[in-house]
Structure formats: C-alpha cells, structure tokens
C-alpha cells in the first residue's frame, strides 16, 4: 500500500509513493540516492542519519517517510558546494574534524540545527547538542572547535549582511 507524499528535499519538491513503514532515511538513500545521511544503527542511537526536518535535527531512521509529507527536509547534500561551502563544512575541514567521515554529515546537520537556534553556544551547549552523534574516530575535540569556529563565522556573516 503506497502512500503518495510531497516533500521538499534540499529546495526541490519531490512527489513520491512511499511504503507505510518506510523510514525517511531509507526514502532519502534508496529513492533519492541522497546517501550523505548514513545508517549507523537504524535505532536512533548513533546520529549518523541526522537531517533537518523544517530546520530541526531529526534521526531520519526514526521518522517515517510519510510523516515528511508537506514538510521540508535538508540533508548534507543541500548545504554547500565546492567554492561555496557552508561555514560548518569549512570549519570541519580547517580544524581537521573529519577522519573516516562516516559521522560527519550527521554531525554537521546536528550542529547546524543547534546554531540556527543558538548562534552563540557555549562549549557545554555544543557538547550536549552533539552528544547523540557518536564518533569513534576523532575524540570530538576538533569537532567541538570546528563548531565554535563556524558559529563565529556565521555570526560575523549575519552581522555583515545587516544594512
């Protein structure tokens, strides 16, 4: 029994027929070939699958594709492009916050959701915000530094744009 949905993914409207038990993660990865969001556990325990749903970080493995009907999804693929990277992407590179990279898309999307809500988080707030995103490689230190650096750049950018 397929459910017709319309969902805006990275700015583009997609009309899809999804299964009732299909997760948003599976929809993004299998139907739309947006494989940036990863499956690390499929149980909401690792954060590798985090995407933004109407600007808020969600574990895409726990959201049903059908629930995204009429909403807006942003994945890592919708963030920046070479030459026009998002400040978070730039900061992750500059601070060597990426190792194997498997946690990176989820980590960046969680951080983005935090910075949209709280443009000047303390380190404690960053730690708490990304505590559901497991990374086995980096020890998190350079990730924490990268998020702070990106926050600063985003604040500067926001100020710069003001008339």
């Amino acid at each position, binding site marked *: 029994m397929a459910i017709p949905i319309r969902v805006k993914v990275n700015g583009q409207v997609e009309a899809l027929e999804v299964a009732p038990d299909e997760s948003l993660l599976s929809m993004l*990865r299998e139907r739309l*070939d*947006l*494989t*940036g*969001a*990863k*499956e*690390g*556990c*499929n*149980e909401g*325990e*690792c954060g*590798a699958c985090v995407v933004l749903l109407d600007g808020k970080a969600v574990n895409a493995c726990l959201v049903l594709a059908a629930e995204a009907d009429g909403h807006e999804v942003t*994945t*890592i*693929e919708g*963030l*920046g*492009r*070479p030459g026009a*990277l998002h400040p978070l*992407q730039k900061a*992750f*590179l*500059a*601070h*060597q916050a*990426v*190792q*194997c*990279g*498997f*946690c*990176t*898309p989820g980590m*960046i999307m969680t951080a983005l959701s935090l910075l949209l809500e709280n443009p000047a988080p303390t380190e404690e707030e*960053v*730690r*708490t915000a*990304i*505590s*559901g*995103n*497991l*990374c*086995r*490689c*980096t*020890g*998190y*230190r*350079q*990730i*924490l530094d990268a998020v702070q650096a990106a926050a600063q750049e985003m604040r500067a950018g926001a100020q710069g744009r003001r008339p």
Partner: protein
Amino acid sequence: MSQGRWVGRDVLRVDGLEKVTGAARYLADVKLPRMLYAQVVRSPHPHARVREVDVSRALSVAGVRAVATGRDFPFHVGIYLKDQTVFATDRVRFVGDPVAAVAAESPEAAREAAALVRVEYEPLPALFDVRQGILPDAPLVHPDLGKYQVVPWITPQAGTNICNHLKVRKGDYHAALKTAAHVVENTFVVPQVQHVPMEVHGSAARMDLSGKLEVLTSAQSPFTVRHLLCACFGLSHGDVRVMVPQVGGGFGGKAGINLEPIVTALAMRVPGRWVRLVLTRAEEFYAAVVRQGLVATLTTGVDRSGKVVAQRMHYLWDCGAYGGYGVNVVRAAGYTCGGAYEFPNVWGDSIGVYTNRPVGSAYRGFGMQEIHWALEQQMDMVAHEIGEDPIAFRLKNCLGPGKRTVTGQLLDEHSGRVDQCIQRVAQAFSEPLATRPGRLRGRGLACAVKAPAMPNDAASSVLLKFCEDGVLEVLVSGIDYGQGLRTVAAQFAAEALNLPIEQVRVRNLPDTDLSPYDWQTVASRQTWATGNAILRAAEKCKAQLFETASQVLGAPVERLALRDGQVVDTGGAGRVPITRLVMGYQFPDGHVIGGPVAAAAHHVPEGLLFLDPQTSQSAKPVAKWTFGAQGVEISVDPDTGHIQVDRVVACYDVGQVVNQGLILGQTYGGVVQGLGTGLMEELKLDLLTGKAQNANLVDYKIPTALDVPAALEASFVETPQKDGPMGARGIGEHTMIPTPAALANALYAACGIRIQEMPLTAEKVRAALREKRAKG
C-alpha cells in the same frame, strides 16, 4: 621539529571535501544493479553439534534466490590459522556463528527465509573462561586443532584449547627472583570489547558468467582478502577482484578477512547477481570480531636499588571461538611482554585460549592496551611497595638506547625515547593538583610501546604517474579509513618532487585489478611503509624528468633541481616546466625524447629475523618501536563512584611529525577511545545462554562529546627513525594503549583503591570505596 615544505605541517585532509559534502561513498551507499540482499542464519547456542540443516522451507519463500550452508562450502579460512569454515559444518562455537546464509530480492524476503532455515542442534558444554579452558578436563572447542593449516610461527597445541603459545625466556628468571629484596605479584583482567566503528561491516560479491569474481567490501586489506578468498575457494588470483570504497572506521575489526567468504559463497550460487550483506548494529556487536579478553598475572622482583631483577608475565588470552587472526595478537603480546621496560631476567608466556565467546581479532593496539593495563599498574604497585615515586621508578627501569628488550634486541639512539616522554608528562604535572570540593582527585601515568606485528615480508607498493597537465597521481593501496594516509601520501610526494600539494592527487579506492600491492592497513605501518615507497618512487620519477631535461637544457643531471613544477639548471642554463617533460619532450623540429613519466616502488621491512622457537630471543624481531607516555588527572565522586577525566597529557616519540593536525586527531581519537575501554566498555555475555547482553549502543556505551576531558594535551618527541620516511614512525594505535592504566593509577592516587579488572565503572569504584570505608 624539523619541517619540510609539506612534511611536518598542518596540511588539510586531501579527502576532506568529499566527506563534508556527503559525496564520499561507503559500501552501503554504492548502488549495485539488481542486487540481492543477504541474511545470515546464526547459531543461538554458544557450543553445539550441528545435526542437520534443512533449507527446503527457506528456498520456497518468494524472492529467495540462493541458500548456502556448511555442507556446500566446507572450506577453511583464516589469516594465520585456518580454524574457521565459511559456515559451520559439524559444530557451532559461539552465539552468532554463521550456519547458513540466504540471498533474496528484498531484505524482508531474506529475513523471512533465514528464519525458516531449520537447524537441529545438540548442545555441548560451553566454555566462557580461559582459566577453565586451560584445565586438562576442559571441553574442547576445536577437537580438530591438530589438523588445521597454520603458518610456521604460530604453535597451536592439538588436544587442548591452546591455539598459540609464545614463550619468552631471557636470562635466569628463577635465580634472579631469589635475589630480589621485594616480590610483588598481581593479576589483572581485561574483558572482550567491541571496536564499534560507526560504519558496520558490509561486503558484496558478484561472480560473472565467465567465472570471474568481484568483491566490494568495507575492509582494511583488499589484497589479503583476495589472497585468502582464493585459498578458501580454490580460485586464481587472476579471477578475483577486490575493491574497497570509503571505509567508515575499522580499528582492526576490518583487518584480515570477515564477511567476504559468506557473500562469495552466495554469489557463486547466483552467477551474474550482486549479493550484499550489511550487518545490523546488533550483529556488529557479537557476530563481528571483538577484542580478545586477557587474564594477566605478573610477578616482579626488585633489588634494593629499585631495579627490577626478575619479571614473570603470564598472559592468558581469550581468543573466543576462532583464533585465525587472534593467534598473532598472542604472539605480539609475547615478544613485547615487558612493555617499555628493560627486564634482565624474564619468564614470559603468552597463551591463546579458545572459548565459546565471540571471535577475537585485531583491535587498535593489537594486545598492547591489554598488557599495559597489567604492566603499568604493576609498575605503580611495585613502586608503592618499595616506597619509591612511580615516575622515578619507571625512569630507572625503562628501555632506551643501549638497553635490551625482552627478546634481547639491543636498542640504539634511533629507537625512540620513552624516558623523554615520561619526563614531558611529569613536567606537565609539576604543579600540585588543585583540590575540588566534594571530589577526590588524583593523577596517574602510564607508558606505552608497540611495534608493528606483521609477517617479515609485509610489503607496501606504490605507483606514481604524471597526467598531461603535470598533475601527479599517486596510487597507494593502504586504506585511508580516517587516519589520514591519503594526505600523508600527498605530503611525501609533494615534498620529494617539490610540487604544490594541489598538483598531487592520491588515487586511493583500492582495486586489486588496478592498484599496486599492499599487504594490509594494520600495525600503524602505512605512513612508514607507504611513505618510504613513495619517496623511492619519487626519486625514480625525478631521475626520468632530469634525464630528459638534461638533454633539453644541455646541463648535467647533477646541476638540475625541481622547483615548483619546473626543472631548473642551478648552473644558469635555463629551466623547463615539467608539463613539457611528463609525456616526453618535443623539440622544435618535431622529434621527441623521453616519454610518460611514471615509477613504481615498494617497501619491505629490512632484516627482520625470526624468534628463537624456545626462548623468543631475536636480534631484530620487529621493524621499529614507538614509545610514549600518558598522564591523566581525574576527579572521583565518592558517592556515585563516577570518574571524571579532567586532563590528559600525551607524549609520543614519533620520529617526525608528518602532519600536525592529523597527528592531533590520532592522539585525541586514541585517547578518547582509550577512555572508553578504560571507563565504560565491556561486551557482556549471559553465562547461561552465551548471548551478548548489551549488543546495542544504549547498553554498550562508547564515549560521547560529553566525555571529552576539558584539557587534552599532546606533544611529540622526534628521535628520527633510521628507516622511516624522513624519520617518521607509526602512531595510529599507540595513542589508546596507556590510557586505561593511567586512569587506574590516578584512581589509586585519588582514593587509595586499586581496580584490576577493566573497565573502571562507577559501580566498581563505588563498591571499592565502600569496602575501603568498611575496613576503616
């Protein structure tokens, strides 16, 4: 620190862009046409005879294309000891042991069919403790142990559960012990733990209609996978192609061979179709390989001056159900049994024991964190016993130039300096530790040493070739699963040929059909081995460029130099851009000299010698040692027993820092992984059923961002490694070796309790504090 133009600097990761944009493709991201989904049928028993496997109902499920069992594929597999079959044949040896596998058009059909495979088991007594496993009346996990194929330097003992035993005998331990003023004996325990890479294991295979096999796998060792697959299935290397996409972490768990035989067996059943198997997170915990457990008993005899005169080390390794790879951890722990110290008289035994637990294998550190948990606590305990400062005691007994290891190897001035690492950490701790209300605070230190554990002929090779526009392509076949090999490879190539780093492209998604040979990405050997090979290949490229340029410029080769993409005559006769040389140089009259510039080179460790089979004495058993030390500061909550790690100070003698940002990443990552095993990680089995009790990320906790110490400090000593590329030696694994022991020592310093069984959970600390209070 010595710095080149590129080596020694903070060069940004060359594969970073694809990872921050979501472009990087890992195994499960690769779309395979008409792919079938595999599901493994696993044993629910820790130990049982397999009476019968009936697949008839499974085959009748709609969408099922193949079922494979041990009857169809009774082939043995294993890197050092071939003690495992693709699927269990006559018996299962742990909960999770593969009995059969199904390939179907959908994951649902595969799951349904797998559930319908009917297996008749006859349960056997199960063995979960190595101390019981070595008793004469213990049930045998491998009654056929004497029949398995094994490399000559591993010594399984038929008729027992011992899959390897390495003996180290140096000096006269028993006589020396009698002369000791103090003797201290202790036992330490390390449980099995999981690697928990964020990307679980996955493999896919397809056999085409001509019989050629393609394998796509999340692995650390494409060439070793190919070699072992060929041995297992009787295939020619020419007909097997192994490819590795991006790998989302491995930590040793993806070394050797893992799921590849299972997907290969299925693929052979459905020629023309891709078959993919990706483990669930739960399977990753108990069905993928784990780190071996250890029971270590140490006896230390010290003379009146505080020198250790006699040291006995008895290591019992819990290899789990199969020891194919783990037997070499046993070996490495044997020839490194004394850690970072010089012990003149040694009695060492490193014994691998089968149990009915999950399969032990390589894990970052390859046995070293486990033995250091014992050795480095023991050093503190002995120091306290004789009333000496633990740091001074270490400095008095540690290895260094002119000292001999437990195998009798003489270290020289190029071997690295653990004493300097200890002193750096001690310096960082020179201020008294500030008190904190309601907390017990303490500092602890532990040292670390590790050598690469690999066959003496473990090789890496590389291929360098230029594109028409002067871009240099560097083909390397080590796996960059985050440690930064690609970046380091680019740095060495750019350094040697004096090119802008942007002009170097590292081609590194290894494909055994197209890529140069590399043994395995393990043992912290890539920077060193691949680095050396790149420097050699670069010299060959340079010679080709110079030969052509010398004719173009009319200058002798000795006068030529490479500068920013030009060959320059230092004698002033001019310059020629390499873009004019890399495909051969064409003179104005049309004639061409030279040709496409390319070179291959390899690295094989120099002069390694086997260990003496009775005593393990050897002048050069390993290629190199990396030494280090870590100090930690902790705060203990006396009510909850919770340990908060406030500060970690790490120092390693890495020979030469190659990349500042990457080496910090390796250090922070290793330290935090070490905090995980030290404080919270343990794969727990129900000892009645043999089932893992915490096979998920909620019950098996790994460190999160909240666990990162407020202060993480890293520094490096650089005593150049003689045979290292520009002096560098390995560091990837070493950073997690000393962390748990340093924590245990800090715990003792903070509150006078000593916990000898890893991990240091709040529960254990609370209980120990209660006991201490009760004793008054």
